[in-house]
């Protein structure tokens, strides 16, 4: 709470003079005074486009577009108009010049929804790749100013389409008390990213903004009598993902009330198309339509190609006719807007096929991913309860099962609501049974199943211990077979089929991973206040991640910034870790697959056989990090249990390795720390990889009705988004909107999560020699000896892998 001292200081500042107060006020709070600013900038760009540079620039835009790049809007300033209202029209004549009228297509737009399409990109979405693009642009910007390499861009919003949300309900309200205001209300998991109000009478933009204060639920703006074109851009929040997007376009007639004379919602739909975006408003935005769909420019018209039929369905681009140009961050240029119709006129005739060269959807990923809905009638079954047995030191019961309703939102409420919804949908009681710790949960399950008992339908496993036993002793059902029977739907985005394939054994998927399981990734945390003095010189760490240059080398450079003692005479550290799996997580993060499968399906230690040099190089990097003078090893310095994070929480370590489950126990984490994924091996590595180190799911072989179990698992995962959102806020210790960078980092981790058979088929110590020779003896690092020990350990583990493979292999 605010103490008296703070209150007094706050009030003392309240007496600064009026001119200073007004000077610091952002335009949207200055009343209706900012339009001339925008008009001025617009006019500059109109003249810019009326000169000879327009063709060159537009050609450049198109060329850049065809190359397949994008500026990720999440990395850009939200509003194209800087604050301050400092630029007034030079002359009245200039200010009074009207902008070009709206294109007739808006007036002619049918008053109906347009369906474009969507595919699930959750596990193919690779945000880092999108960033590469903007770096290649170097242009003279037509105003006699050179725009630096990363300087010319387009204001657009990247759309990551995912599951089909319920469209939010949008309403316009004429507030009696605050006349001339309009509002939008929608569900909390919809984020209003952008509002544009275009005064059709005056031909000017009244507002074009995103405001943090209102983004969750509503927006407001002065709206005197007149006719307006209003565009709303809304995204749907799924877990940590801002995904499926919708554009709303309205023609409003405002008198004593607000009448919607025409409306059109451009929304996504999962039925028809592989991919869709509603956000084809600018050229640069169009390039965000990645991963499958082909969008074409044909003489200035946008067309959408149906991947299945090759048809071009009717498709309208509903947006204000502007391109926004973003200046270089290294110059003082203002944002500017360009009427889009000028760009059309200068777009060279011809066809431009834009096809993303990255991840294409495979045939198996085609929709429909699933063929049921939450409100479908329950399956006919004589099963009335479904019991989950969970490993208590991997899963916190309260993260999955809540017995009583909680008021006030948060994780417990989200869990409870999902549970009630799913129980109703499947007409079952869901029960959760504590199977004990990692040493015992498997025994209880085995005893039950081998006796033919169907008490336990689903097991939530430890991440490593006991897994091989479960997989090889006929305890677990093959989830691939359930998928073939359409009892579960592994192609849906809420299952992570890639991980399941990686940890499959003998051609069977005995363990599964889906969104019902909450993430528990290994990650890097950094102390924000310790790093603050280095931001200017070293750059924002979040930006490094977004730019794809968060590498081992960069991490080492950052860690080297801190050493010696702080002002209190305490030793400070650049890097700290707890050894063990935290260090091993560098291996998958560095792109090394430890265990892979041969053509005959037999697993082997590929990290040693195929990637030996990179593996050794990784160890060298990590060894240097851990053994630097400014590094702290908790394991080595551990005095008492629970001491692990004492140094970290005392603010004495800049970079530290931890996991989500550990991090959420830190106090004041939201105020102090930032989270980052593990670094890439080097810049050449295409993507980040984040080790998922939580337990997994298995369905027991004694289950009487696998269809009901499958439907339950599907529904629990498919409706996990509110739980994931609340969980992310719990982990970060703050609301999602207050920690957008950290939320984005968690999202990157989740979309880049990976696992490896070594982390699952690890028990009985067979995987241990690899861990040991790699990282637990890092203090005695010797390249030759370690390489030799690794080879021996790999040989031993290869034999073990072959043995367990043959035990369960498909004949």
């Amino acid at each position: 709470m605010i103490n008296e001292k703070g209150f007094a200081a706050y009030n003392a500042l309240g007496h600064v003079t009026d001119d200073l107060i007004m000077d610091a006020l952002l335009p949207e709070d200055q009343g209706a005074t900012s339009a001339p600013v925008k008009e001025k900038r617009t006019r500059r760009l109109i003249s810019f486009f009326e000169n000879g540079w327009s063709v060159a620039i537009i050609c450049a835009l198109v060329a850049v577009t065809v190359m397949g790049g994008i500026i990720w809007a999440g990395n850009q300033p939200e509003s194209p108009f800087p604050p301050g209202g400092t630029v007034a029209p030079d002359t009245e004549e200039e200010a009074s010049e009207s902008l070009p009228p709206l294109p007739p297509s808006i007036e002619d737009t049918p008053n109906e929804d347009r369906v474009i399409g969507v595919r699930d990109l959750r596990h193919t979405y690779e945000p880092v790749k999108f960033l590469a693009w903007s770096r290649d642009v170097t242009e003279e910007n037509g105003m006699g100013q050179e725009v630096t390499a990363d300087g010319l861009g387009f204001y657009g919003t990247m759309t990551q389409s995912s599951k089909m949300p319920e469209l939010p309900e949008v309403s316009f309200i004429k507030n009696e008390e605050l006349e001339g205001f309009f509002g939008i209300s929608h569900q909390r998991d919809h984020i209003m990213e952008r509002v544009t109000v275009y005064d059709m009478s005056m031909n000017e933009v009244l507002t074009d903004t995103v405001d943090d204060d209102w983004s969750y639920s509503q927006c407001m703006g002065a709206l005197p009598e007149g006719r307006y074109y209003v565009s709303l851009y809304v995204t749907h929040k799924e877990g940590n993902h801002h995904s499926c997007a919708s554009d709303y376009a309205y023609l409003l007639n405002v008198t004593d009330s607000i009448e919607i004379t025409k409306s059109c919602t451009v929304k996504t739909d999962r039925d028809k198309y592989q991919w869709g975006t509603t956000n084809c408003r600018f050229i640069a935005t169009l390039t965000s339509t990645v991963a499958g769909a082909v969008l074409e420019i044909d003489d200035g018209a946008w067309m959408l190609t149906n991947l299945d039929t090759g048809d071009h369905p009717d498709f309208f681009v509903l947006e204000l006719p502007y391109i926004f140009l973003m200046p270089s961050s290294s110059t003082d240029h203002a944002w500017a807007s360009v009427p889009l119709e000028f760009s059309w006129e200068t777009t060279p005739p011809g066809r431009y096929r834009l096809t993303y060269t990255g991840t294409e959807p495979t045939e198996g990923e085609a929709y429909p991913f699933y063929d049921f809905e939450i409100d479908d009638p329950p399956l006919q079954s004589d099963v009335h309860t479904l019991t989950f047995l969970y490993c208590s030191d991997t899963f916190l019961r309260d993260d999955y099962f809540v017995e009583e309703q909680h008021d006030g939102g948060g994780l417990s409420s989200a869990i409870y609501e999902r549970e009630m919804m799913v129980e109703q949908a499947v007409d079952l009681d869901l029960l959760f049974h504590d199977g004990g710790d990692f040493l015992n949960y498997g025994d209880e399950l085995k005893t039950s199943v081998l006796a033919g008992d169907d008490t336990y339908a689903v097991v939530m496993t430890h991440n490593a211990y006991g897994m091989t036993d479960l997989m090889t002793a006929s305890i677990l059902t093959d989830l691939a077979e359930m998928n073939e029977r359409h009892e579960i739907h592994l192609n849906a985005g809420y299952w992570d089929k890639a991980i399941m394939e990686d940890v499959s054994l003998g051609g069977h998927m005995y363990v599964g991973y889906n969104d019902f399981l909450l993430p528990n990734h290994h990650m890097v945390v950094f102390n924000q206040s310790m790093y603050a003095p280095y931001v200017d010189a070293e750059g924002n760490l979040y930006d490094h991640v977004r730019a794809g240059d968060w590498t081992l080398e960069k991490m080492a450079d950052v860690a080297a910034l801190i050493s010696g003692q702080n002002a209190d005479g305490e030793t400070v550290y650049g890097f700290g870790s707890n050894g063990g799996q935290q260090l091993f997580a560098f291996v998958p993060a560095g792109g090394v697959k430890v265990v892979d499968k041969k053509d005959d399906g037999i697993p082997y230690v590929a990290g040693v056989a195929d990637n030996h040099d990179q593996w050794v190089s990784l160890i060298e990097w990590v060894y240097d990090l851990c053994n630097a003078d400014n590094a702290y090893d908790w394991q080595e310095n551990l005095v008492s249990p629970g001491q692990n994070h004492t140094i970290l929480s005392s603010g004495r370590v800049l970079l530290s390795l931890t996991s989500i489950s550990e991090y959420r126990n830190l106090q004041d984490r939201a105020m102090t720390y930032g989270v980052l994924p593990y670094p890439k091996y080097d810049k050449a590595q295409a993507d980040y990889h984040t080790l998922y180190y939580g337990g997994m799911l298995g369905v027991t072989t004694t289950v009487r009705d696998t269809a009901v179990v499958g439907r339950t698992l599907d529904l629990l995962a498919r409706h996990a988004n509110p739980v994931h959102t609340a969980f992310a806020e719990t982990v970060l210790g703050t609301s999602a909107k207050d920690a957008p960078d950290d939320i984005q980092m968690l999202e990157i981790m989740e979309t880049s999560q990976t696992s490896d058979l070594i982390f699952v088929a690890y028990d009985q110590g067979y995987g241990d020699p690899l861990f040991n020779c790699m990282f637990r003896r890092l203090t005695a690092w010797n390249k030759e000896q370690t390489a030799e020990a690794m080879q021996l350990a790999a040989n031993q583990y290869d034999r073990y892998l072959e043995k367990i493979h043959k035990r369960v292999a498909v004949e």
Partner: protein
Amino acid sequence: MTDQEIIDLYFARDEQALFETQKRYGASCMRTAMRILDSRPDAEECVNDTWLKAWNSIPPERPNVLAAFLCRIARNLAITRYRALHRLKRNRDLELSITELSECIPAKEEDDTLQHLIDSFLRGAGELDRRLFLGRYFHNYTVRRLAAAYGLSENAVSLRLFKTREKLRAYLEKEGYSI
């Protein structure tokens, strides 16, 4: 209607003054209150109180800048309301900004000399730093909002704010204030 015309309505005790004030400055006052209270019903009450206070203050006061006058009232009412509510859901961003502020400004409310010194310091600070400082600590904009508005990274904003706070603290201590 201009600010001067609105103020004239106040002096004429014409209730149209409230209507015109609300029409012109309702949104900005609402935003000011929302940034502190983070609750629409509370903010609405705060804005209504702002109009009442303006009505009771003009006359005799004749604001030079009506917007700043209203903004200051709304800010003060909102922070008072925030404290009185003992909110279960705390506005952590606000509390952080006030904590930061208390580390560079001494706890003396009615001290003309101090207020003069703060004003002088801010006038002598760079334009961007001054705007960021007042945007953060007077208008309660989030760091993120300021970063977006000024085209800076959030860390750059935080760093600039930190440096300005340190300078202000040193300046005031040099002038004999203990913080």
